[in-house]
């Protein structure tokens, strides 16, 4: 995408100045062809990664839905007296994938713009960290990287969940912001709610659940945080790969268009050079 902008500027700049030299055009043509080769192979790589991510996502969806069920059925609401909120941004270290990371970061930035006192942020992936740390660096309590190269595992999710629980940040409610995969061409930035022990214990509907003690609920919530994180990481990874595939496909198409235009200009210029040389020869001969 960057390459496209640079090449296009140079291209138009050249047109304004009139005839480009043959050499300059052929060099540019070669570089665009190289860019196309790169974007095409990146597309192939992400297509393979996407296929795997989608297969794995199908396996994980029941976990995510199962973990969500209880919160929905028990109608748990965030406590009003504890305003502290935790926001977990699920992105990755890698770019060149359209707007997946920016849309997660933008969602969090709008929330922080409303209230930056009571919200703490956990950034998963270098991309969200890079975007959020510029203005809201003080709100970040944890940052993770080394995600995106390989598919996320349950171990990754449980490591993060453990770190969140041991961070000693007391939050009343929280949310996981991630990209939910819809189809190859679309994803939706969504949130999953996370609750603290207090807010669950305060829920009026909890009484219909039989024989619960605090330790069971605590362990339950700990595990469900890990499973929700696992699920959202998988959704995020799948959206990212599909989006990268589309982005690289578009980049290859753009490069293709540019190659066509450049080839045309190249041929025209070559013809012009030949014509000019002929004119020079003919007029030179007639002057004799």
């Amino acid at each position, binding site marked *: 995408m960057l390459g496209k902008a640079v090449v296009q500027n140079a291209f138009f700049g050249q047109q304004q100045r009139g005839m480009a030299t043959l050499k300059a055009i052929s060099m540019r043509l070669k570089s665009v062809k190289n860019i196309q080769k790169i974007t095409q192979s990146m597309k192939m790589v992400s297509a393979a990664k996407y296929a795997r991510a989608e297969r794995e996502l199908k*396996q*994980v969806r*029941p*976990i995510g*839905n*199962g*973990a969500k*069920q*209880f919160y929905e*059925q028990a109608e748990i609401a965030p406590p009003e007296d504890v305003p502290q909120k935790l926001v977990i941004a699920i992105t990755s270290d890698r770019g060149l994938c359209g707007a997946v990371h920016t849309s997660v970061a933008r969602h969090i930035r709008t929330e922080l713009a409303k209230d930056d006192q009571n919200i703490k942020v956990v950034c998963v992936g270098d991309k969200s960290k890079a975007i959020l740390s510029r203005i809201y660096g003080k709100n970040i309590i944890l940052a993770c990287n080394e995600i995106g190269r390989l598919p996320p*595992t*349950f171990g990754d999710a*449980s490591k993060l969940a453990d770190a969140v629980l041991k961070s000693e940040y007391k939050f009343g409610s929280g949310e996981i912001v991630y990209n939910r995969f819809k189809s190859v061409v679309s994803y939706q930035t969504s949130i999953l709610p996370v609750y603290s022990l207090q807010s669950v214990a305060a829920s009026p509907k909890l009484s*219909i*659940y*039989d*024989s*619960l003690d605090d*330790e*069971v*609920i605590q*362990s*339950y919530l700990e*595990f*469900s945080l*890990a*499973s929700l994180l*696992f699920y959202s990481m998988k959704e995020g990874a799948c959206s990212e790969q599909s989006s990268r595939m589309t982005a690289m496909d578009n980049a290859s198409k753009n490069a293709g268009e540019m190659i066509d235009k450049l080839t045309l200009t190249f041929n025209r210029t070559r013809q012009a050079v030949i014509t000019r040389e002929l004119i020079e020869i003919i007029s030179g001969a007639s002057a004799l």
Partner: protein
Amino acid sequence: MAAMRSMSRLLTSRALNTTIRRGYAEEMNFTFAAGNQVFYDGKSVKQVDVPSFSGSFGILPKHVPTLAVLKPGVVSVYEEDGGVKKIFVSSGTVTINEDSSVQILAEEAHPIENIDASAARELLTKSQSQLSSAANDQAKAEAEIAIEVSEALVKAAE
């Protein structure tokens, strides 16, 4: 003791529910998903036995809503066609909702026939020596968990 208590609870709740909701088809919407594999996704089954920290208990359709945390052990699923599937779970959660849907989420789960009995016994000896060499409370607690798990593994593999 805990197991007995939950059994009696189960019986009473079931009797109560059948009198109230007689006429409905008794179905359990059962989901069993682990980090490595999905075993059931919204399937109807007859009964599920689960090991939990508050004692092992059986889940029949229209069980009273509850939450439980899994203990390492064998989950037995009694399928509609009469077959019984035994799956070893490492850990996870059980949710029984008001609408009679049951979710078991586990970190790792495998059918018991995939467990190697000699490997399990080896793990038990290893974790026992780990306990004797544990230097602090945390290492001791970790070793105790390891013993608990490997004992359950040995038992399941027999």
